[in-house]
């Protein structure tokens, strides 16, 4: 008997909700003359010396498979990097795996540790991939809300409310996309304590770790008794502006990384060698360029926050990544209609907060990975938009009164 078309797709996949960003993307793509502050990747092109190193490697004939784990030289540099920057010690021989972007590492980590029925805690608002990856791995994703009043930091009390006997893991992403929140040492202490007490594995996506503006990033893996239960995920996309190269890595206890390599060797084999060569150059000689980019992000960050506050929007100071997550509640609009109207009337694209979970309602995500010129123009348009909104609202309120 022939299957009906709808039945060819696994229910697991069929029931995955479509990405909240997709619909908005189509809307933006069909509007002309848009300035987009909705881009989740650096506006810088990969530094020239990194691109140049990749050309050279191709000329030298580096076009083959590498070790499943990734090139030994690269793993060694990654190990050095983690030690120097975050005081984490991992053996390059068996505790580090090079992956196709941090995204693959998230997928591998979840598939490696999940037994169907396990629950995985995901703080929201959050990057869009964790929930679907957890579902595909057979887990039940459980959302932990974070809120504006806590500057979108994960709170121990909130976390504890969601833990039960089935809870297996916690996904952390700080510095955070979409809020720009960070977790400082004192914020992480309680989370680490909870993880140890409840025997949780922590998947810590630290892809924005180099983009912090108020002291260095702290990894939860550096806390006592956490190293053995944490999978640290990082990559080259954000700090070195290498999104399209699809190159990242995971570091963790040997048993887990070995198990991740097992899946990786059957599904991916190895990360592309040219990207690995570029990553090697990035780690060896890329520090100065990263510093320059971070400096610029920081200047734009201050500029954007002050502009938003001038418009009367509430906005906590984001200390990491390249996002600002202001509240638009004073307009009385939902995130989605705000973003749609702003696009239609002023041709400025931002992402509605709800694309990152329900707790994003009342907020929009603004990316300052855009030139100062475009930021200025876009924020001027947005100020005009909000001014009109509040004027109209005042008129409406008067009409209602009389």
């Amino acid at each position, binding site marked *: 008997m022939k299957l009906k078309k709808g039945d060819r797709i696994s229910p697991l996949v069929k029931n995955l909700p479509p990405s909240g*960003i997709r619909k908005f993307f189509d809307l933006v*793509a069909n509007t002309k003359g848009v300035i*987009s502050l909705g881009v989740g990747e650096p*506006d810088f092109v990969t530094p020239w010396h990194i691109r140049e190193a990749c050309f050279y490697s191709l000329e030298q004939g580096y076009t083959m498979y590498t070790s499943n784990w990734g090139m030994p030289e690269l793993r060694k540099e990654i190990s050095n990097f983690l030690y120097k920057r975050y005081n984490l010690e991992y053996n390059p021989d068996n505790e580090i795996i090079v992956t196709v972007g941090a995204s693959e590492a998230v997928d591998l980590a979840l598939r490696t540790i999940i037994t169907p029925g396990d629950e995985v805690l995901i703080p929201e608002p959050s*990057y869009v*991939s964790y929930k679907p990856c957890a579902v595909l791995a057979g887990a039940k994703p459980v959302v932990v809300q974070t809120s504006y009043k806590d500057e979108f930091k994960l709170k121990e009390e909130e976390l504890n409310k969601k833990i039960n006997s089935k809870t297996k893991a916690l996904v952390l992403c700080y510095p955070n996309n979409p809020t720009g929140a960070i977790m400082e040492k004192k914020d992480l202490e309680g989370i680490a304590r909870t993880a140890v007490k409840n025997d949780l594995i922590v998947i810590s996506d630290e892809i924005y770790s180099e983009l912090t503006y108020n002291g260095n990033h702290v990894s939860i893996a550096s806390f006592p008794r956490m190293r053995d239960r944490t999978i640290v995920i990082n990559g080259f996309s954000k700090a070195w502006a290498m999104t399209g190269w699809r190159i990242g890595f995971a570091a963790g206890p040997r048993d887990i990384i070995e198990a991740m390599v097992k899946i990786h060797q059957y599904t991916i084999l190895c990360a592309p060698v040219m990207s690995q060569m570029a990553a090697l150059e990035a780690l060896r000689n890329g520090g100065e360029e990263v510093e320059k980019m971070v400096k610029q992000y920081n200047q734009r960050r201050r500029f954007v926050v*002050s502009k938003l506050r001038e418009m009367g929007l509430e906005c906590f100071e984001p200390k990491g990544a390249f996002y600002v997550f202001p509240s638009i509640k004073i307009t009385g609009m939902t995130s989605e209609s705000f973003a749609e109207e702003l696009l239609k009337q002023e041709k400025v694209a931002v*992402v509605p907060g709800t694309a990152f979970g329900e707790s994003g309602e009342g907020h929009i995500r603004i990316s300052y990975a855009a030139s100062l010129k475009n930021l200025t123009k876009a924020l001027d348009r947005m100020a005009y938009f909000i001014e009109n909104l509040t004027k109209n609202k005042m008129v409406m309120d008067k009409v209602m009164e009389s």
Partner: protein
Amino acid sequence: MRKEILELLETDSKLTPYQIATMLGIDKSKVEKEIEAMEEEGIILQYSTLINWEKAGVEQVSALIDVKVTPQRGVGFDDIAERIYRFPEVRSVMLMSGSYDLSVEVTGRNIKEVAQFVSQKLATLEHVQSTMTHFVLKRYKQQGVILENKEKDRRQVISP
């Protein structure tokens, strides 16, 4: 803080003290004061614009001239350098290490104008031993800016 203000102004001299202040997270009045002081001290010399003259359709020829000179007792190269940089045709003068002494950039409306300047004014100066003129054929990058930048924003308009 001065260095940070200067770095911003070097890439965009149109930035207002207010913009600079927000970007650096300091007071506007502080920025204004520093800028004024730096203008007075001769640290900030000019707020200029980088122009692609070729694209603007203006005929212009530039040459880099290697000049060998005899240094003078007491003043070294400074005296002769000053005699050269006072000519308005001269865009820049630098003392160099290596096989010649002064590198002089000269611009004119055409080759003849530059050639005349070199042969009549520059080469005939007392203490100038020899000159070697190199005409600029094409400019690719100037003051750290690529003149015809082919890189554009190729990113997707929205991404998570």
